[in-house]
């Protein structure tokens, strides 16, 4: 059946809080793609042409959807963090896993204050023996550009160009969870100073990456300053000011922010009203009450999510349809909603369940005129 809007128009309408022809559907497909496309996970991480082809094959096998979230945003951590990688430390088809350990020491906040983001990252990459990955990291924009070129031909948007992290969230990757949580109590001033020292550079590097990719959306990932980990007060003190700076800087030049917010943000939702209206899409992973998010933020930013991993793995297509219908009717009401998986579709999801999510949006997601 011919649809009234193209995927590009549909996603754009939802992001700008308008009412599309139907609810757009955009599963976060990363490590499930090699399984569906029949390629090695190791090749999916390391070979761009395999990544992009696997995404296309997966898209076609699932019957098509409205937006491509670049898996490079997720596989990037294979090059920037200490990780166990398939084809190197693990069998070819195993799932990549990041090792949570203290790579950055407490004194390194001073390094960040003195030398900024690049100085800090080069030092940390050197420590994990990943210095040679610098080219790969700097080439992220080009890798996403290659993906975008494929999808431009099919008129399907690519969800984001480059990543920009609130500094404390970036520190968390390298400090380990336990240490960053202690730092947030004991080294508050250092975090604030280091965040100030890095923010301008973080924004300008992210913009360059978005521009190289040719995608005017910045990926802003966050988890450790959610209410799963810290108090709303601490979020307000150590995360929100820089989140605002990032979002405002991009909004000013007409770029959108994709807030990939894992864990529970329930107590922080009100704060997000301080970001400019329609400047962001809030992507939730199932741990934040998305229905509450709609009530608090529905007139302010697009909401995206959140079919849980558990349902993809253990549920039936009927279960998926039931949950998606609830999302469509409640979170989708009045537009400003993109139906998606809660974070990544799990690697062992039942294929019929992913299809059920996509089909529910197509069959039952239409807005009445």
């Amino acid at each position: 059946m011919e649809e009234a809007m193209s995927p590009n128009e549909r996603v754009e309408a939802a992001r700008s809080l308008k009412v599309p022809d139907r609810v757009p559907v955009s599963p976060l497909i990363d490590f499930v793609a090699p399984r569906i496309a029949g390629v090695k996970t190791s090749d999916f991480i390391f070979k761009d042409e395999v990544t992009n082809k696997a995404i296309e094959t997966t898209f076609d096998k699932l019957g098509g959807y409205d937006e491509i979230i670049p898996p490079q945003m997720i596989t990037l951590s294979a090059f920037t963090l200490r990780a166990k990688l398939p084809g190197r430390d693990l069998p070819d088809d195993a799932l990549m896993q990041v090792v949570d350990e203290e790579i950055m020491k407490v004194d390194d906040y001073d390094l960040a204050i003195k030398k900024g983001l690049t100085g800090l990252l080069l030092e940390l990459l050197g420590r994990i023996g990943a210095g040679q990955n610098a080219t790969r990291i700097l080439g992220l924009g080009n890798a996403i550009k290659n993906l975008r070129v494929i999808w431009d031909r099919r008129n399907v948007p690519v969800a984001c160009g480059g990543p920009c992290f609130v500094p404390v969230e970036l520190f968390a990757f390298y400090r380990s969870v336990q240490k960053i949580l202690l730092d947030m109590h004991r080294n508050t001033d250092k975090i604030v100073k280091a965040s100030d020292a890095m923010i301008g550079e973080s924004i300008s590097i992210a913009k360059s990456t978005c521009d190289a990719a040719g995608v005017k959306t910045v990926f802003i990932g966050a988890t450790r300053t959610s209410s799963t980990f810290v108090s709303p007060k601490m979020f307000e003190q150590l995360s929100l000011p820089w989140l605002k700076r990032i979002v405002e800087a991009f909004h000013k030049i007409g770029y959108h922010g994709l807030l990939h917010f894992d864990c529970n943000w329930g107590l922080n939702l009100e704060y997000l009203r301080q970001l400019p209206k329609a400047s962001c899409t809030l992507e939730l992973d199932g741990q934040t009450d998305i229905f509450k998010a709609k009530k608090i933020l529905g007139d302010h930013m697009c909401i995206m999510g959140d079919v849980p991993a558990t349902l993809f793995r253990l549920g039936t297509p009927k279960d998926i349809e039931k949950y998606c219908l609830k999302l469509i009717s409640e979170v989708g009401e009045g537009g400003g909603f993109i139906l998606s998986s809660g974070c990544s579709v799990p690697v062992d999801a039942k294929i019929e369940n992913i299809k059920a999510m996509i089909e529910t949006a197509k069959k039952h997601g239409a807005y009445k005129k």
Partner: protein
Amino acid sequence: MEGLVNAIGDLDEETAARLVKEMLNKGEDPLKIVELCRKGLEVVGQRYEAMEYFLSQLVLAADIFQKIVETITPKMKQRKAEIRGKVVLGTVQGDIHDMGKNLVAILLRLNGFEVYDLGVDVSAKAFVDKVKATGARIVGLSGLLTIAWDSMKKTVEEFKNAGLRERVRIMIGGGTINDSVTKYVGADAYGKTTVEAVRLATGWGGK
């Protein structure tokens, strides 16, 4: 005495450290100090449950307590606090996420359990072997990824095959775990939070 309980409860490290020093100088029994700290940690746990405190405050409280224990250990001589029970803990095979597991280990120890932490990517057999070796009655299986569920299920099966399933209580935990996963795995219960895991273990006793 109340001062130390309050200082820990309020996460006031300086006051807590000063009070411990004063008590030691006065010749106070180190085990009494540990007991007061535990009471303070109970306050922290209550505030966490009331959502006045968050995970970062639990981690901070645990760190404050550990530092106090380090200070008083040399004075403890051969005496040991009473053990509530033994717990074998680990992240199951195929998964290396250990943040939740580590926190549970810390909190269990603070609450008087002897914890055998097997680390990450732990095989079903290793869990069973450790239970056989230690006589532990509680097993905690951790995992963040959905692929961990099958390893958890396999570990539960391994206990059945070893004839130990009736002897141990098995709890699971991790970001994706809920009731349906617990049923799928065949575990006895799941802890949604680290504090809940401790409550489960305390309820089971584990002796």
